[in-house]
């Protein structure tokens, strides 16, 4: 009993030391840097970097654009994966060739982004195919699908990754939660197929998968390699903007970059807190 207690204590201490402490230290450093109390520009407390960010709208623009990419990618991939899992009745992974779903997940995001670039850009395979088949007269006529203002290329790659992840995950949830039997129960009580989807399948699956959706959403929100290769400089996703600001010659950009880092970390903490509070959330 005592040994188990000590093991638990040791595990918790290790977790705090290895994960939470560096994160907390990073957050404190970012906050201090952003208010002029740390780093090479430290010259006493000031809010001018925060004011500058807020007044220029940079902070909101970056957050809004990242949220847009996250929202569209997650909604599209989750809805498509859910529709497929429901039609397969939770036996998607039992089908032949289903292991192909693991492939995008095993590939580095940068590699997928590179393939997407080769596939979707004006000089890429799709454009060559369109040109070869006479659909377009020159590569300039091919629509902007990468480095475009709507982030289509970024959404495409995140869709591929998230679709594979949600397909595998939702398939397991469907089987573990015995959704098929619950649908039968609902139908025996008089529900039509659509009613059973709306009143049973959808709320049950959403309740169970809400934490995974949120955490995956955060992953997309802070993604770096994919928007670096497939995005453009304005608008820009969060991580790309932070790294660009940190690596500029203008040292005045650094405190602003740390301000964005701190705001992002607080957003993450808030989300994890809300997930812990929610029913069926993180435990």
């Amino acid at each position, binding site marked *: 009993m005592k040994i188990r207690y000590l093991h638990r204590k040791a595990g918790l201490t290790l977790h705090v030391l290895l994960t939470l402490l560096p994160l907390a230290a990073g957050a404190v450093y970012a906050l201090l840097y952003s208010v002029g109390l740390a780093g090479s520009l430290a010259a006493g407390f000031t809010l001018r970097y925060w004011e500058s960010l807020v007044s220029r709208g940079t902070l909101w623009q970056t957050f809004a654009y990242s949220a847009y990419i996250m929202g569209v990618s997650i909604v599209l991939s989750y809805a498509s994966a859910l529709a497929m899992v429901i039609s397969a009745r939770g036996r998607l992974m039992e089908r032949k060739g289903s292991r192909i779903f693991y492939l995008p997940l095993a590939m580095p995001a940068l590699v997928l982004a590179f393939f997407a670039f080769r596939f979707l850009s004006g000089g890429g395979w799709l454009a060559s195919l369109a040109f070869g088949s006479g659909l377009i007269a020159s590569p300039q006529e091919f629509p902007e699908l990468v480095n475009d203002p709507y982030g289509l290329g970024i959404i495409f790659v995140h869709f591929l990754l998230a679709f594979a992840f949600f397909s595998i995950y939702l398939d397991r949830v469907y089987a573990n939660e015995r959704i098929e*039997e619950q649908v039968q129960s609902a*139908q*025996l*009580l*008089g529900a039509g197929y659509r009613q059973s989807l709306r*009143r049973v399948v959808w709320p*049950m699956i959403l*309740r169970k998968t809400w934490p995974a959706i949120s955490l995956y959403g955060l992953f997309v929100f802070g993604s770096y390699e994919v928007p670096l290769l497939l995005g453009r400089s304005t608008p820009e996703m969060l991580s790309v903007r932070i790294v660009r600001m940190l690596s500029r010659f203008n040292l005045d950009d650094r405190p602003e970059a740390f301000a964005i880092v701190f705001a992002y970390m607080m957003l993450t903490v808030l989300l994890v807190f809300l997930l812990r509070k929610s029913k069926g959330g993180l435990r």
Partner: protein
Amino acid sequence: MLKVIKLNKSYGKERVLRDLSFSLREGDILSILGRSGSGKTTLLKILAGLKEPDGGEVLLRGQPVLHLPPQKRGMVYLYQETLLFPHLNVFENMAFGLRVRKIPGSEIRKRTEQLLHELGMAGHSAKMPEQLSGGQQQRVAFGRALIINPSLLLLDEPFGKLDSRTREEMQELFLRICREHRISVLFVTHDLKEALCMGDRIARMEQGQLKMYAKRSDFIRDAATGAKKEMDFWTGIREESKMKNNEQ
């Protein structure tokens, strides 16, 4: 009210139901006893519309039902596991069948509260399924089925996972409610005592067919049911303890 005519079902080469026929009167409870794998569950699932038979006919109040989807048959099949909807509280689980029928809210409240009271669950209406004991979950599952006034209840070893005391309580409650509401029931069990306690009539599933017993005494007399052997065992125990008491 229920007539099953020459029902057949095979899984691969194994014939689970062979020209199975029987009938059930309005308000009767028929206990069906049988070993695991004897086809009891398959029979109930075919009647409920969850499986398709290879051949045969099922008439409910004179009307064929095999072509109807489960939600239009007016039969409710209850599993051994209650399968309450985990995202709905007790009240909403119970009211589910009324909600999907788009019954007015005031009517739903009235009927659900009345049934909750009848099942001794009035104080638990806001609880979630995971906050209930096995017996309480079984009551909610039972109420959820009763509230839509089914023509026929199909119970597949519903009390199989309950401890003996809760099981007895549930059997009593179930019998009382079924008598009061005059519900027709097919009650599948592999428990000899439960089959005898619950059924107005008793049948035994054997080699894909249903052997009906006209009287309880016929059932006990049939050596294949094991009832005689069971009774002899308990009689022997009683005699033995009597003899020991006399010797002391």
